[in-house]
């Protein structure tokens, strides 16, 4: 094994240990989350949609479940379960879509679990978790139908998207829906910044669940991410200083 392998193991094990410690600490000293304008607006938008009998749509993206781009979809599925718990008993419960069969099954599973937890298992319909199209642009082409026919007023994009993400977000804007969009691709984040009312930048796509009454570990993971980011910034600044001084 190379030094790099040991470093990888050390980083993963260290992060896991830190996450567990911070989760335990979270019970005693709960984290106060930063005020995020997008997430505060999301809470209000979901409440308005439930009261007005309109629907929330959440997209898990056009990535795949078995690829390296699955992480934002996994975070999206957690957020989906939270939103489903809040909307199961409304006239129009949340509907989820994906551009991959496995992600559609994941969405159905998350929805089924949420319905069971809220005691509304009989209201669950498998068609609330859908695959719209197997290719990125066929997915984007099918989106306007679901947005108009399901009377969607909250359009959430939390998954891996390419350029088609810009069309997906813009379709929500044309529907005059509340649009919150995030992706793990930074080029797509730039597109979302232009096309979506609320764009999630950087790692924000992974924290939606924590802002929707997330679990202790979800909130602890925010603290961990902030801490590691500060350590990285300090290391970069130190490295720059040492290189400038000719030490490195």
């Amino acid at each position: 094994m190379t030094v790099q392998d040991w470093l990888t193991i050390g980083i993963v094990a260290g992060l896991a240990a830190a996450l567990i410690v911070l989760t335990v600490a979270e019970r005693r000293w709960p984290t106060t989350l930063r005020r995020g304008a997008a997430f505060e607006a999301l809470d209000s938008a979901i409440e308005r949609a439930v009261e007005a009998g309109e629907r929330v749509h959440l997209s898990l993206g056009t990535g795949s479940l078995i690829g390296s781009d699955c992480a934002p979809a996994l975070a999206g599925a957690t957020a989906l379960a939270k939103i489903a718990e809040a909307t199961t008993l409304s006239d129009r419960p949340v509907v989820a879509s994906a551009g991959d069969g496995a992600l559609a099954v994941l969405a159905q599973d998350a929805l089924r679990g949420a319905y069971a937890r809220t005691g509304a298992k009989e209201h669950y319909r498998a068609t609330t978790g859908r695959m719209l199209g197997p290719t990125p642009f066929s997915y984007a082409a099918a989106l306007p139908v679901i947005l108009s026919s399901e009377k969607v007023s909250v359009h959430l994009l939390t998954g891996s998207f390419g350029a088609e993400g810009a069309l997906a977000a813009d379709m929500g804007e044309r529907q005059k829906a509340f649009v919150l969009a995030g992706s793990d691709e930074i080029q797509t984040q730039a597109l979302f910044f232009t096309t979506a009312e609320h764009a999630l930048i950087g790692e924000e796509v992974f924290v939606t669940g924590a802002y929707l009454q997330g679990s202790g570990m979800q909130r602890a993971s925010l603290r961990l991410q902030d801490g590691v980011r500060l350590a990285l910034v300090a290391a970069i600044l130190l490295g720059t200083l040492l290189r400038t001084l000719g030490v490195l």
Partner: protein
Amino acid sequence: MRGGLHYLWTALAILFGTLVLLGYVFEIPALQSIRNLLMQWSVILSAAALLLGLVNMLSVHWNKVGAQEKGWPYSALLLLALLGTFIVGLIFGPDSAILSALFNDVQQPVEASLVALLAVTLTVAAFRLVARRRNASSIVFAVSALVVLLGTGPWLVGGDGSWFQTMGALRAWWSQVWAAGAARGLLLGVALGATVTGLRVLLGSDRPYGD
């Protein structure tokens, strides 16, 4: 019973996730064989899930046609196209000339037209951004886009003049120093977020696979 199954699914997810992760970092043949086997299973399951997704799509549009909902003719067209392509594929095989023609003459042009639509969408969205969100970040974003456009694209007049050269140099400095630095910062954040999300799933805290 549901509670018992819930623990079983969580335990299986943690076990298989850990085995795959360890298979990536430890060069132990047995561990790597298990990892490869699990990855092959996931590919097969993913292909089966694609079929399930298609059945799901079929049922959504079938219900829509049955209930004569708004836009049902489009759903009917989708069902005909889906079943027609599926039957042609079953009879002639996925590499047949008919399926290639369907892909090259229908699917590809339609998707290419959507890519073209993207350019228009982005231009309109850029104007909307400046009109609706007049804050510092929107202005920086719009100015950056303008600098990159002017420094990259050919100019109708003065394309070989000193102004074009200056804009080209400004674009290079802007994108290679400022934009690249910011992009690396964002990439670090994304990598950190993805790792922590994976760890939450691996530790059984996030269970996106339901109960």
